[in-house]
């Protein structure tokens, strides 16, 4: 079996949670494989980050280079190419950095590439069998990947339960490229990081509400957003949404729940016309009571909701609003 490496994303001296999920995925590929974490970066942050993964990785490789202080995928790829043995299996989290790094790395390593993996189904000879999702999570697929010349595999965040292996002791090995003629820092990147621009705050802070009326593509047009707003007003809730609503410019980005939007922790989450992509679900924390209303009985949201109603939200929501208003009127009398 090939060596397995996990590329660890870290920030301000702390490894991302995905570090421990990659370790779990690696163990599922081969519990006996030699497992190594690789971290790139610079200075005290890098050293501190290396120390935060010892619980899951017996061996940690660090590549320190000032040019890698901010993770520019092009430079990271060049650094990894220098140190990774051929035929390695390289695991990377399937998030914005992994999406940048992994496909090109597989080309340069001349190895197979399989992305956004949810589960490992096993190894049969030279083939790794994995589980992926397609069509917005409506169906899953088994995918076979020939790993005889290595593989780059991206792992969906949250798909594997993080494990701590406590190897007893772990060692950090400095793999920083010292050969000046070959140093990573001297390689000019065709892409240069400038700055990070923080998301705009928006008019309503959806993270502050106990109840969210959250709308998806099923709202169909901008004018229909009012239907959800009326329900939210009656409930004392806020309207949030999934990505397609923001893409269509029907609501501000600040209303979006998901990995590229806000993370919310309401008590009750009404998912209205939302299919339930994993990127959306990643933004819902704290296990709220999830009620899904969707006219497609196959919508993946029904797999994760507590209660589901197969109905057209454009008819269901106004009637629900009327009922809430009736209750308020009765209560006022």
């Amino acid at each position, binding site marked *: 079996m090939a060596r397995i490496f996990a590329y660890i994303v870290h920030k301000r001296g702390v490894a991302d949670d995905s570090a421990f999920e990659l370790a779990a995925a690696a163990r599922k590929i081969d519990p006996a494989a030699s497992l190594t974490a690789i971290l790139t970066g610079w200075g005290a942050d890098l050293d501190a980050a290396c120390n935060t993964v010892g619980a899951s990785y017996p061996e940690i490789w660090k590549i320190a280079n000032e040019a890698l202080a901010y993770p520019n995928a*092009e430079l990271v790829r060049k650094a990894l190419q220098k140190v990774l043995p051929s035929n390695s299996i390289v695991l990377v989290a399937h*998030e*914005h950095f992994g*999406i*940048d790094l*992994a496909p*090109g*790395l597989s*080309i*340069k390593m001349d190895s197979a*590439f399989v*992305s*956004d993996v949810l589960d490992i189904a096993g190894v049969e000879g030279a083939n790794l069998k994995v589980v*992926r999702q*397609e*069509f*917005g999570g409506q*169906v*899953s*697929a088994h*995918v076979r990947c*020939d790993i005889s010349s290595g593989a780059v595999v991206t792992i969906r965040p949250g798909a594997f339960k993080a494990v701590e292996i406590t190897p007893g002791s772990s060692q950090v090995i400095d793999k920083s490229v010292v050969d000046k003629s070959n140093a990573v820092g001297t390689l000019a*990147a*065709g*892409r*240069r990081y*400038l700055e*990070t*621009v*923080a*998301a705009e705050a928006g008019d309503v802070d959806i993270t502050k509400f106990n*109840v969210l009326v959250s709308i998806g593509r099923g709202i169909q047009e901008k004018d229909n957003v009012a239907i959800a707003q009326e329900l939210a007003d009656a*409930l*004392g*809730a806020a309207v949030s949404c999934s990505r397609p609503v923001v*893409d269509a410019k029907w609501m501000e*980005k*600040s209303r979006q729940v998901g*990995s*590229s939007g*806000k993370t919310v922790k309401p008590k*009750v989450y*009404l998912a209205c016309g939302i299919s339930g992509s994993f990127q959306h679900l990643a933004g819902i924390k704290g296990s*709220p*009571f999830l*009620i899904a209303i969707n006219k497609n*009985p*196959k919508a993946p949201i*029904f*797999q*994760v*909701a*507590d*209660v*589901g*109603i197969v*109905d057209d939200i454009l008819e269901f929501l106004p*009637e*629900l609003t009327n*009922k809430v208003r009736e209750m308020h009127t009765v209560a006022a009398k």
Partner: protein
Amino acid sequence: MEILVCVRRVPDTSENEIELNSAGNDIERGELVYSINEPDNYAVEEALQIVARVGGNVTVATVGGEDDEEILRREMAMGANHGVMISDEAFSGSDGRGIATILKTFVQKGHYDLILTGVQAEDGGAQVGGMLAALLDYPFASLVNSIEVLEGKKLKVSREIAGGNKEMNEIDLPCVLSIQTGINEPRYVGMRGIRQVASVPIPTFSASDLGLGTSAVGEAAAKVNRVDYFVPALGKGAEILHGTREENIDKVLELVAAKGGLK
């Protein structure tokens, strides 16, 4: 600026209930509504807007077959100057790397300053753009949600990162960018527009036209293959309410109140 946009025709997830066929080795494709992959459409719109600002041409290309021509026509109706079909029996069964290899040979036959792809396909893995860039040794940025053309053969692009934040980068041309949905508002295409480009010739490139040996593409070269489809049992699943609408509404209100959600 000469811009190439790589596009794909896919089953439209928002319009379809995807089901397995009886053999379980594929999805039921008979009744599916197909359309252009959504992020690809945003990529074409972005290319058209760049050309409107700085001049140039937009070419849309797809690796596929006869059925896929409709999306090229659709994008030409949006305003793309050229449509190109890259088609050969030898291409069938290609994995992501195979498709990227085919596109690489096509790119090398032309002179493109900028190559755009959608960030990912409904049945794909956000792979072809990054692979194509690596094969060409061009710089690459994924999840791009704004593009500004700078002086001196450079772009300023922002990438969508976690929490709605944006990572700003400068990138040299020629480069490959994968485009995220929401970067713009793609223009509407009516039947009339599509009829107007119905007779515009679409050149086809085969493996031999591209000088492409078939050992690097197609099923035999693929290191990654889909074995089967299945419907996963994720979690316990929702309790589906089967009452009348009125009963369901009462139940929802009862639950919202019970979970501490009503004022």
